């Protein structure tokens, strides 16, 4: 109807016709004086009729283009009987904990369900890190038509958003596959297949898996994006210690404060929380983070306050991601027993290198205890070490003690200095008649056929690190692998003789390295492989607990990190009941919320911090075309309910209009008025011309 405003056009033109004329640019107006325009009263009168006609024509044209219709209740067609299959995916990741999102999500789901016809099949899945069915197709079909919505809503009411990250890609794939599976089962349904995604579509959603997925044809994606009430959100993430952390005067924990892309505030406060979690303990750091960026700050550990385990952030709208739990790693103390008659400062002997290859670091202290084979070994001395190095022949008592420890689960590294140490190998393995032979290659030998699948060599599996040819071996001891039952050759010399063997013994194992690392035997000690190899041996012996990896909500915690898996482990989640895991369980998977988890195995108690996925803090909405970019079909954004009602009304109007086609009449009327206008204008012009010809003046 805005077109009706065009009626003003002729009016304005008629008014300004006298004043606007063509413009003429002239060099100088210094000799010209303005002349008053001349007007004729009669022509004005005549033109008013023309003006009215022109206005009428334009008004009719505008009415015609407005496509009017008479509002009548048109007989609506019965809803097409095509049954649809719908999977409703409801986001229950941590970012859905934001104010108002969950209630809105439930409303949206309800709206979708209300629209479903009795013939439709609906399944409702929730997803965060994992996809779990809330109501499956089978349950939907099994329920009575009137109770289905109630069933979903009651289950939805019992669900709350969790603490996990958002693996949206996986969720979409699962939903698409669920639809495809249902296809296979039932051929009778011909209606559209649809995924309705109810999510806040935060930028931290993981979509990578969609990239490799071939989206099945015919599955539509409807996105119900939930708008966040407050957009300012900042999150915390633990950052690895800086390399010079041990040199700092005061211990500090580094955290990254990241601000969401659509935040409106930039100023936040970070500090340690008191053990009761109420307020800051110690110094508070003011952090300025522009939207969409992150800043790493070192939060110094306040002295004299025990039980600190949480760093918190204040200053944003949403507090679901405002804490990060920190468990300062305990310094591990390990000891290694070296059985050999070496002088500690003899640079030609293996001990010299062993002592220097395992220096102290903030997390680990390894003590190498040398012990001469000639001296007697007491049982107390073998209790603590996890790893034993044997380089010489041993007295039978010592060998028996070591074998006992090995069978109980410890690791012995046998690295004979000479072929005479063969007796020790026989004693340790319980095999008699095992012989070694000194070999001196004409030039040098190299390590070949390394088994990179084995945990010992796994760190070197990357092609960048797998080159062992720089290590030249001047002499080695030859052993027949066939003579040792159960021996696994992990590496050979290029001559084909075994270089490193693994022989399982009871719960433990023996590693037989057939050359020494000292420079008289080989270049192993001076190569870059030596230290990682020793740490691998420590890990293999179970002495070294891997640390430093952060555990996110939903990550499984390997129980090997908390103690021997041979005993049952009691896990105490934060604020929950203790769970006892039977012996032999590989990992604890129920990390459902952030906090400090306590693992008790026998006498030993390990406390691990589990934190929120930092991606959840990126709460700015995904770019609209992001899903399409990852291969999902274009999201058909669903308008707000009010808009939907309006659109429906518009649609009905359009239908009525197309039936009545009133615009034709208006267009016909316009043409008629224009014809009259032209005739009138022509007549006026002729009359004027005649007047001029006869010399009449109009003024």
């Amino acid at each position, binding site marked *: 109807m805005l077109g009706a405003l065009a009626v003003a056009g002729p009016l304005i033109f008629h008014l300004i016709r006298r004043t606007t004329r063509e*413009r003429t640019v002239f060099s100088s107006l210094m000799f010209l004086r303005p002349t008053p325009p001349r007007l004729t009263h009669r022509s004005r009168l005549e033109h008013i009729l023309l003006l009215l006609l022109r206005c009428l024509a334009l008004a009719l044209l505008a009415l015609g283009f407005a496509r009017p219709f008479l509002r009548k209740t048109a007989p609506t067609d019965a809803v097409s009987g095509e049954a649809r299959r719908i999977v409703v995916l409801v986001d229950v990741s941590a970012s859905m904990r934001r104010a108002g999102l969950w209630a809105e999500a439930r409303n949206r789901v309800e709206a979708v369900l209300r629209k479903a016809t009795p013939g439709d099949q609906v399944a409702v899945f929730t997803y965060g890190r994992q996809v779990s069915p809330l109501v499956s197709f089978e349950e939907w079909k099994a329920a009575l038509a009137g109770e289905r919505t109630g069933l979903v809503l009651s289950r939805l009411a019992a669900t709350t958003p969790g603490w996990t990250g958002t693996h949206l890609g996986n969720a979409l794939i699962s939903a698409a596959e669920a639809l495809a599976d249902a296809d296979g089962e039932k051929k009778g349904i011909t209606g559209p297949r649809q995924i309705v995604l109810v999510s806040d579509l935060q930028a931290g959603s993981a979509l990578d898996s969609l990239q490799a997925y071939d989206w099945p044809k015919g599955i539509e994606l409807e996105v119900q994006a939930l708008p966040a009430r407050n957009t300012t959100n900042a999150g915390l993430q633990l950052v690895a210690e800086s390399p010079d952390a041990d040199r700092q005067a005061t211990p500090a924990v580094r955290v990254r404060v990241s601000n969401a892309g659509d935040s409106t505030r930039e100023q936040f406060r970070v500090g340690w929380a008191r053990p009761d979690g109420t307020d800051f303990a110690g110094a508070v750091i003011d952090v300025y983070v522009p939207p969409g960026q992150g800043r790493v700050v070192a939060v110094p550990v306040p002295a004299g306050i025990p039980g600190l385990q949480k760093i918190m952030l204040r200053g944003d709208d949403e507090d679901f991601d405002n804490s990060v739990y920190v468990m300062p790693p305990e310094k591990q103390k390990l000891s290694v027993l070296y059985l050999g008659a070496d002088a500690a400062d003899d640079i030609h002997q293996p001990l010299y290198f062993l002592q220097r290859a395992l220096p102290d670091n903030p997390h680990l202290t390894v003590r190498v205890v040398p012990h001469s084979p000639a001296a007697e070994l007491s049982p107390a001395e073998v209790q603590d070490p996890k790893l034993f190095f044997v380089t010489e022949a041993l007295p039978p008592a010592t060998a028996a003690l070591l074998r006992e420890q090995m069978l109980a689960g410890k690791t012995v590294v046998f690295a004979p200095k000479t072929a005479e140490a063969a007796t020790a190998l026989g004693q340790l393995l319980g095999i008699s008649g095992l012989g070694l032979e000194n070999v001196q290659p004409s030039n040098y030998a190299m390590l070949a056929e390394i088994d990179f699948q084995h945990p010992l060599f796994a760190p070197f599996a990357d092609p960048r690190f797998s080159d062992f040819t720089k290590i030249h071996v001047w002499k080695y001891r030859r052993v027949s692998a066939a003579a040792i039952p159960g021996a696994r050759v992990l590496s050979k010399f290029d001559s084909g003789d075994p270089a490193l063997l693994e022989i399982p013994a009871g719960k433990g194992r023996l590693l037989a390295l057939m050359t020494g690392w000292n420079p008289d035997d080989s270049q192993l000690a001076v190569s870059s492989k030596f230290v990682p190899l020793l740490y691998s041996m420590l890990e293999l012996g179970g002495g070294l607990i891997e640390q430093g990896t952060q555990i996110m909500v939903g990550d499984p915690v390997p129980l090997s990190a908390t103690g021997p898996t041979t005993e049952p482990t009691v896990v105490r989640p934060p604020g929950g009941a203790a769970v006892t895991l039977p012996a032999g369980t590989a990992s604890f998977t129920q990390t459902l919320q952030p906090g400090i988890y306590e693992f008790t195995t026998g006498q030993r108690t390990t406390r691990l911090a589990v934190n929120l996925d930092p991606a959840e803090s990126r709460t700015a909405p995904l770019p609209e075309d992001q899903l399409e970019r990852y291969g999902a079909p274009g999201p058909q954004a669903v308008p707000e309910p009010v808009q939907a009602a309006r659109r429906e009304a518009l649609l009905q109007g359009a239908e009525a209009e197309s039936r009545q086609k009133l615009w034709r009449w208006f267009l016909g009327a316009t043409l008629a008025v224009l014809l009259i206008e032209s005739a009138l204008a022509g007549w006026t012009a002729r009359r004027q011309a005649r007047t001029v010809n006869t010399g009449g003046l109009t003024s």
Partner: protein
Amino acid sequence: MIASANSPGLSSAALIDPRALMSIRNLELRARVVVEGFWKGLHRSPYHGFSVEFTEYRQYTPGDDPRYLDWRVYARSDRYFIKKFEDETNLRCHLLVDQSRSMSYGSNGYTKAQYAATLAATLAYFLHLQGDAIGLLTFDEKVREYLPARHRSGHLRQLMFALEKPASGKATNLTTPVERITGLVRKRGLVAYVSDFLAPLERLEPSLLALTACGHEVTVFQVLDPAELTLNFEQAAVFEDIESEQTVYIDPAAARAEYLPRIEAHCAAVRATCQKLGIGYHRLSTEQPLELALFEFVQGRMRRGRLSRPSAPSRS
């Protein structure tokens, strides 16, 4: 062709239609066409042998400076002759060209600025051929560009380049360039002042007086468009001042009666000022062929030269 009646030396056939001339893009080429045509015209005219650098010999009379004796002639004829106006061959000519925006008006396909630039280029080329030094000063409300008078290769091209710049100034100040040239050029010379003079004239006379008082020989070319002289518009329209962008509604039929006397009075005022100061004044309509302007210029110079030239052989 209108000027053929009062140009005794040039037949109308020899003149070039300015419209055709202006269609030549290159300013130097345009100037060359005019000057060469002018030379051809001269050959048919009774005024043989005159030029700005005209040199004549006069028999020596006691009292003349012996420095001006032509010894070669003496060697040939055994008589003493004085070389007259030798220094005029090293004439310095300054062209003052208006480049204000009022000059960018033109009703017959080219602007006054183009016409004025061609006129200036023609004069420059003509004088250059004679070995004179030519300088240029372009101006609008202030002095835009100044090229000192020189006679060397490349200078003419530089001058043409400066002339070809578009007229852009928002106002015309007629006195500043005159005052500037008075201050800059100490040695006597020739000054050709090309403008439409469509600006207040109050201070024009004192500044021109200062220039002539310095001994310069001044020639004024008032370049006007035919439309400016006749106001031959038919339709009433909103007239926009090209310089001030001020608009006025004007019905030419009604305004013409008042306009024509006023512009004529203005031109007469310029002419009167020039006559009073002994300055050559030429009013050129842009439809007049340029050769006429050149012819008038040379002729006027000759006439004034005869009138005002001192009889002493030396002009140093």
